């Protein structure tokens, strides 16, 4: 493996982490969506790097699809949904956990991911690609999960899900090496349909409850 390639891999992995922190530090929904867009662009670039290093042409196709669907279609869709909602774009995060603390927690989660991957897969002989991308994809998963539980609005949970999904996509590309273009297309299609359905659900939620605060979703219980 050439030094250039190793550098590229390390750079794109670092870029992904930085883009993920972009989501953590933003307050407004527009901020999240643009941060998600940056993350997706970096993800597409990373996928292309995987394609370059393994030499499978279909990984390039997956990269292109990622670019189109995640950096263009999904953000556009999300912005359109929120513009239909009164004051949707100026919504405050009103988080359960403050932004400053969120950054700290996210940093801890990244450290935890590196430790975990090192621990669990210590026996497995990982190559350079997996070594660089695995901890990053696990971090994306954790940070996405954290974003979902630390903030109130339902939109956040969608953004959290999308971050998790980006992590999954990276994980799949790094470990399966393009033997599964069809599966990656399937995952992308699921993500796209998921966003469409959650968008419809969000519109309905804001109309019925007059809020997107998930705290208002607690009617169904047995007592």
């Amino acid at each position: 493996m050439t030094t250039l390639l190793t550098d590229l891999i390390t750079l794109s992995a670092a870029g992904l982490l930085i883009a993920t922190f972009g989501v953590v530090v933003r307050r407004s929904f527009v901020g999240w969506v643009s941060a998600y867009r940056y993350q997706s662009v970096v993800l597409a670039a990373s996928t292309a790097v995987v394609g370059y290093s393994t030499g499978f042409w279909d990984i390039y196709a997956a990269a292109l699809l990622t670019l189109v669907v995640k950096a263009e279609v999904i953000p556009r869709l999300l912005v359109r949904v929120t513009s239909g909602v009164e004051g949707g774009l100026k919504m405050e995060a009103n988080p359960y956990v403050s932004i400053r603390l969120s950054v700290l927690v996210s940093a801890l989660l990244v450290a935890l991911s590196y430790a975990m991957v090192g621990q669990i897969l210590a026996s497995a002989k990982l190559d350079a690609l997996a070594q660089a991308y695995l901890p990053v994809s696990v971090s994306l998963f954790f940070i996405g999960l954290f974003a979902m539980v630390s903030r109130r609005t339902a939109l956040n949970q969608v953004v959290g899900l999308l971050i998790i999904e980006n992590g999954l996509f990276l994980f799949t590309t790094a470990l399966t090496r393009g033997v599964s273009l069809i599966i990656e297309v399937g995952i992308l299609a699921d993500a796209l349909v998921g966003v469409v359905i959650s968008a419809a659900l969000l519109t309905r939620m804001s109309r019925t409850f007059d809020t997107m605060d998930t705290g208002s979703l607690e009617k169904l219980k047995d007592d």
Partner: protein
Amino acid sequence: MVMWGLYVDSVLGALPSGSAALMVTVLLTPAAAAAFVAVTRRKRLAEAATLISALLVVLQVAGLAAGVVAGTRVSGFGEFLSLDALGALVMIPIAGVGFVAALYSVNYMGRQYERGIVDDRHIVRYYAGFNVFILTMMVVPLANNTGLMWVAIEATTLISVFLIMLYTTEGAIEAAWKYLIVATVGLSLALFGIILFSYAYSTAAPTSSGSAMNWTGMAADARMLDPAIVKVAFVFVLVGLGTKAGLAPMHTWLPDAHGEAPSPVSALLSGVLLNCAIYGVLRFNIIASGTLGPSFPSELMIGLGLLSMGIAAASVYFAKDMKRMLAYSSVEHMGIISLAVGFGGFVGLFAALFHIINHATAKPLMFFASGTVSQRFGTKTMSEIRGVIKVMPFTGALLLVGGLAIVGMPPFNIFASEFLALTSGFAGGQFMAASAMILLLVLVFAGFIRQLVPMVFGSPSSDRSAPLGSTERKDDMGMLAVLPMVILATIVVVLGFYMPQPLQTLIRDAVHVIQGVPSS
């Protein structure tokens, strides 16, 4: 011309033949029906198309299953799709319950339509979604590629969320949202696990030419996989697919989703969708047992099974809403299946698979009955439903049969499989777990019967004005509402004391698939 002929030949050659073609048409049928519904946008046409498609699916699945019973494993598209006895066992209930649910929908959704709860747009959406739902569920047992299986399971989540949010009530929106978020996060975990399995396989057997995600390859080479990776991967898959299967403590979305969905959809969610997830767990259980030996996966399955039964027992006791109580009962039954798989051995696995079939008949029966009853009484709250058997003689009797079957009374089918599961537990030396299972079964029995008996036999209060005239008049809400229940109740009763030979062969072969015995 010659070129053209060659082209046609090569296309025909690439197409799967015989039973394999059936695997494709069985998927195309509901797809075509959904497209037809979406294009024509007429209520009558939508009902007819859905019924015809459901009937055709039943016939084609019967054809596929007959082939599998005869001993041939069907596969197509270079092992991308395949069907063995275990898959067939999951596929038969999907087709069967799909058909009775389509039949029941005509009456149930028709009545919602007459009452103005849903309009034409909703009806079209409902039937289109219904067909797609059947389609996505059938891909799960047909997929040999585990990645495709995951994509299909995730697709079932999305389409069932779509069906739950058909109603615009606060409850439905809340339920749909929770279901979407919890199930999607759970399934993300499952995909992590599946990719790890595939990674373990591709590093262990790098020469394999086929896709590194094919289940058959992984299962065949299970011994060669890295145990450290497989252990982690199986835990991920179990937690992820366990979420979708409603195993406690990941079951939190389930009572909401099953309670708020339209009743025919609840029947599908509870009766067959949960099976698809359990089926996924079983598939990876086979690989994990092959790599790690049976004790690690079994202990996990027994633990989750007992926890599910325990939480379900408490929740059934405190439930006030009829459909939520049935949903908790589903958690209990998924727990029983998981427990029986954990007990293992031929008898335990046989019990688990038989229980999948039994639950898939009794639970839809209960959801259909509860749907009709709640339409008649205008409420799902159990304390307000009294004397069903006096107001609706047929439905009341069927509700009683289904209820007694669900709690495991002899001579109904669920008793048979629960008894087998207990036998295997005691025979396998799992005294503590099997005793705990008996205790929890008794608790669920008490909690369930406490609600069921007054609902069926109590005296109907005459001052309540039901939406359809007085409750004094006897009315079962139409033949089309009763017929699907009669079909299911017949199976529930018959399977209690007689198992047809083909089903016996199928379950035996499926157990052999799990145990890794080559089919005879």
